[in-house]
């Protein structure tokens, strides 16, 4: 399976990465090389094989039902959360106008 220039442009748009013509021209053969190479996975008979979901058997834990049990991952840290924002106003992230 190989991808066309239009398909790469579409993927870039889905991934929200702006790409100019020159960059697309360079990316198409590179992606096709990689996709051609991974094509060999099709040779393997995987009927009856379960796709891996957890690499080391581990069960999901339940934590104690306590508010703010782990301070670092709990609430009340608005200023910390906003500290690295390119634009923060009135205690919120600032973004360009979304609604016309």
């Amino acid at each position: 399976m190989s991808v066309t220039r239009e398909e790469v442009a579409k993927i870039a748009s889905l991934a929200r990465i702006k790409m100019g013509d020159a960059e697309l021209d360079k990316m198409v053969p590179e992606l096709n090389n990689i996709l051609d190479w991974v094509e060999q996975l099709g040779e393997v008979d995987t009927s009856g094989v379960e796709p891996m979901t957890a690499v080391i058997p581990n069960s999901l834990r339940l934590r104690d039902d306590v508010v703010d049990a782990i301070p670092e991952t709990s609430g009340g840290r608005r200023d910390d959360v906003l500290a690295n924002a390119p634009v923060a106003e009135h205690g919120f992230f600032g973004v360009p106008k979304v609604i016309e």
Partner: protein
Amino acid sequence: MTDFTQLGVKDIRDGVAGGDFTAREVAESFNAAVAAAAELNAFIVTTPDHALAAADAVDAKRAKGESLGKMGGVPIGMKDLFATKGVQTTAASHILEGFKPEYESTVSQNLWDAGAGMLGKLNLDQFAMGSSNETSYFGNVNSPWKKEGTNSAMSPGGSSGGSSSAVAARIAPAATGTDTGGSIRQPAAFTGICGIKPTYGRCSRWGVVAFASSLDQAGPMARSVEDCAIMLEAMAGFDPKDATSLQMDVPNWEAALNADLKGKKVGIPKEYRMDGTDQAILDSWEQGKAMLRDAGAEIVDVSLPHTKYALPAYYIIAPAEASSNLARYDGVRYGLRDLPDGAGLQDMYAATRAAGFGDEVKRRVLIGTYVLSAGFYDAYYTQAQKIRTLVAQDFEKAFAECDVILAPTTPTASFPLGSLDADPLTMYLNDVFAVPASLAGLPAMSVPAMLNPDGLPLGLQLVGKPFDEQGVLDAGLAIQQRAGFEAQPEKWW
């Protein structure tokens, strides 16, 4: 006077504890060595004050007769993939330039709690994507090693290339690394040092910039097996903040080290004998077998039939997870924002990500987006995850017949920076021997074996059963004792 920069983790810890020298003297020596080694470009930022403050705290504790911790007085390098509170954390990307976390990663906090200090944040391949340290936004890292008779800049390996370069150059006694598909082991092999990736889940991923979450594991890089055992003990441990953290006690690996391998079986996987592998690598493998036999082990042949499919499966799974993980870099919450005149939100995302990600990162995000997209998901992603199951089953069957597996770490020695630029695929092949253990979540280590005819280090890899870091470390120690690898790069920086 002692040259402190020649000391490793254990010697520094024991020397400080025994009062032979102070932690401050050690930190000052390494700070000076770091400052004098700018040409290596191993560090993105240096933090001499952090190292001194930690050292002073250790010296003060000693004066009071308190316990100094597993890493008491040892200054280390921190891969710039670990969030460090108030210290820029970039993952070597432009998109995170200037990001100063408001929190500390669990692994780095564990190390500070154990008495370690930080010399600085180490350079790496951007978002840990690369095998040569040429994808960093902050420039290539130079290996301290040179190919005999040449002056070309050599690759320290990747992605933990700042870590490997710094430890090999003796400007840090040890450093943290992370390994997604070989990023601790391959750079360790390229620079003549040790590095271990523990079982998936041993070290918390909380506060580690995510690349491929089902594969990412932190581990130590240091100059000896003992030093790796000590530092891994300090780094590992259950963390409720990481849903995949292993709820198990951390063994006392250092105390249990035992290079006597009587009664142990070492598996040699025949599929690792691949076309294109350097003769010197094959020779080192033969020597490794002889060393382990000499340590009392029995050498047995094992088969890992899906080995050749591990790397292509990895290059579907890792980019798929990366494309999802890296969706968070959008110019809204942290890091770079590129807002062209009159642009809306969607244009801002696309412009920010175009300006903030390097070529290799873009390539992998696009591959990941493609293999996860409607219509292609089953053919690529599901098939790769099934093959991942088969790779893990291969190991399970092999470990019914042996205790630990011995293989080369890499198919070649280090190469000159820039020499593999033309084709991303050639670069990927560097990790052909490292990726299978990553896909199976197994503990794996690289230890230096010998120099090749060009005077460059070669590493041997040990892969263990899940949770059996001890078996890996013990076999590593047996090789270390017999290989007697003492070579150091000649100082040119």
